[in-house]
């Protein structure tokens, strides 16, 4: 018999470190054609951190995003950041990028001021060009600046480094978590159908929403929620990491025995939503969240199974076998 259930969950996800120290460095170099290379130690492992940092660099420099190239594979030569973990890149690394952009802008304005014969304070840097404040006819495009710098004894690399406020302990009285940089909040609602004879679960509809501070790239936020769901579904329903019935002989040894979800396991209807409450620690209010989207579906699935079957299941993954055993124990 197929039974339907609905479930909801509210979760939080800490993003960025303080206690462990979370240094961040970045460098932006002006190239001879007037475009820029942003060098960062933040590794893009598919989550899109290069795009996010490129957006921040373009924004701070006031140049088209196409004019920024990201190099995140410079190895030894790269400025250091702590890495791509703890959903930290969007919260922490834009600070270093912003400072590097400001440094580079000051260097370019100083160089341009000498060309114009004015004070650096009288040079504006906007719309991908430099100009004299009270005499806008006197201007140089960034391509002209790049070429000019290249043909003079100058190398322009703006650098930035940032380190968040030091660690203070978790406060059990208030629940404040100052040891982490920021906290993001997520919620999940879902409807499922479970077959009481085979234990097979079908997620029919799933909505997941996250409060992300500032959606620096709204499309990527939604894609990340989708990716997190994929991990969460496996975590909740199929990915077995330790031995189960009946013995150690059946620990998965090859990927063929380790069941990550496929598209066919995805909900038929899948909505993703993003809410913005600017975070005081982030540049423009941005913070990380994405890893949290793998956790929210799990308690919602457990709650929906309880709604459908009347039993609380207290282990994951909830394989079809776990469901049948739980129903059997209830009698």
């Amino acid at each position: 018999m197929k039974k339907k259930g609905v479930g909801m969950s509210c979760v939080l996800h800490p993003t960025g470190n303080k206690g462990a120290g979370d240094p961040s460095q970045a460098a932006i170099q002006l190239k001879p054609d007037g475009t820029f290379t942003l060098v960062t130690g933040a590794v893009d492992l598919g989550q899109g951190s290069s795009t996010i940092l490129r957006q921040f660099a373009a924004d701070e420099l006031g140049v088209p995003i196409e004019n920024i190239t990201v190099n995140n594979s410079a190895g030894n030569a790269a400025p250091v950041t702590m890495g791509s973990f703890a959903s930290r890149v969007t919260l922490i690394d834009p600070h270093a990028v912003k400072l590097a952009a400001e440094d580079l802008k000051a260097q370019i304005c100083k160089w341009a001021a000498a060309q114009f014969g004015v004070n650096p304070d009288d040079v504006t840097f906007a719309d991908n060009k430099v100009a004299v404040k009270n005499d806008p006819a006197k201007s140089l495009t960034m391509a002209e600046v790049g070429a000019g710098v290249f043909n003079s004894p100058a190398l322009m690399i703006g650098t930035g480094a940032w380190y968040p406020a030091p660690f203070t302990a978790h406060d059990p009285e208030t629940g404040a978590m100052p040891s982490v940089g920021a906290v993001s909040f997520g919620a999940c609602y879902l409807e499922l159908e479970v077959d009481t004879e085979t234990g097979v679960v079908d997620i029919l509809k799933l909505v997941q929403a996250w409060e992300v501070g500032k959606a620096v790239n709204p499309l990527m936020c939604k894609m990340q929620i989708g990716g997190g769901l994929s991990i969460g579904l496996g975590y909740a329903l199929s990915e077995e990491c330790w031995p189960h019935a009946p013995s150690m002989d059946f620990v998965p040894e090859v990927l063929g025995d380790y069941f990550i979800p496929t598209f066919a396991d995805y909900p038929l209807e899948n909505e993703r939503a993003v809410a913005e409450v600017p975070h005081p620690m982030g540049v423009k209010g941005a913070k990380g969240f994405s890893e949290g989207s793998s956790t929210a579906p799990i308690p919602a699935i457990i709650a929906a199974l309880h709604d459908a079957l009347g039993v609380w299941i207290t282990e994951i993954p909830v394989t079809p076998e776990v469901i049948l055993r739980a129903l059997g124990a209830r009698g």
Partner: protein
Amino acid sequence: MKDVGYFAPSEIGETLKLLADYGAQATVLAGGTDLVPKINCYELKPENLLYIGRLGLDYIKEKDGKLVLGAATSTAQIAANELVQKKATALAQAAYRSGGAATKTIATVGGNVANASPGADLACALLAMDAEIALASVRGTRSVAIKDFFTGRGETVRRPDELLLEIHIPIPKGKTVFWKLGRRKAKTLSVANTSVHLLMDGKKCVEARIALGAMAPTLLRCTQAEALIKGQTLDITAAEECAARAVADSAPIDDQRASAWYRKKAGQALVVCALAQAADINN
């Protein structure tokens, strides 16, 4: 590691001669989706590989009331073939659900049968259709009913010098269905599978064949369960009794995918679903 001999003949005669010469020292390679993982995991160390993908054995045709499948016909071809979809529906369903696109593109129906996995999806459907396996050797050809073909896990009556050449399916008179349970909804081996052929006269079952997979060392034909419903009115109660009988004869094992306990429970539910669908029973 020693070198492995590799032969890729383009003629059947030459292939049979190689099999006659090498016998058990030759391992037949078609799509390789079962064989190559075994080699990679050192479960199997073949002396010689004999590739049969160049023999033109990929065809599906209708002849004398039978569907004839060349052994090297890919599961993707079978899943997409209109003749199979229409006349041997369960086989098309089994092929469709047998794996992901990459696997189905190279996996072959002959390999699915010859590998003799107890949970083979296509072989399960073929068992419910009473298919015949055509084996060829330099000594001639012979035909074996699929219910007599499997002798154990990975073991068949194929002799070392024989090539599985074709599969002949008497076009089913009734409705055929295939159901499987995996650990996820696609790209999954069967935790349990079943295929049912039912010829109905109204609510009465005239002819029944039930195959059950991943529930014993070989695929099972559930003849005692079939006898329960043959000539009888088939309602949901009868279907449930029949399914219980089918599973009672099984002897599944515990493995990475599920326990024997689960297989028995879920396998029974699966047979009920298949019977209900094949007989158009609404609960």
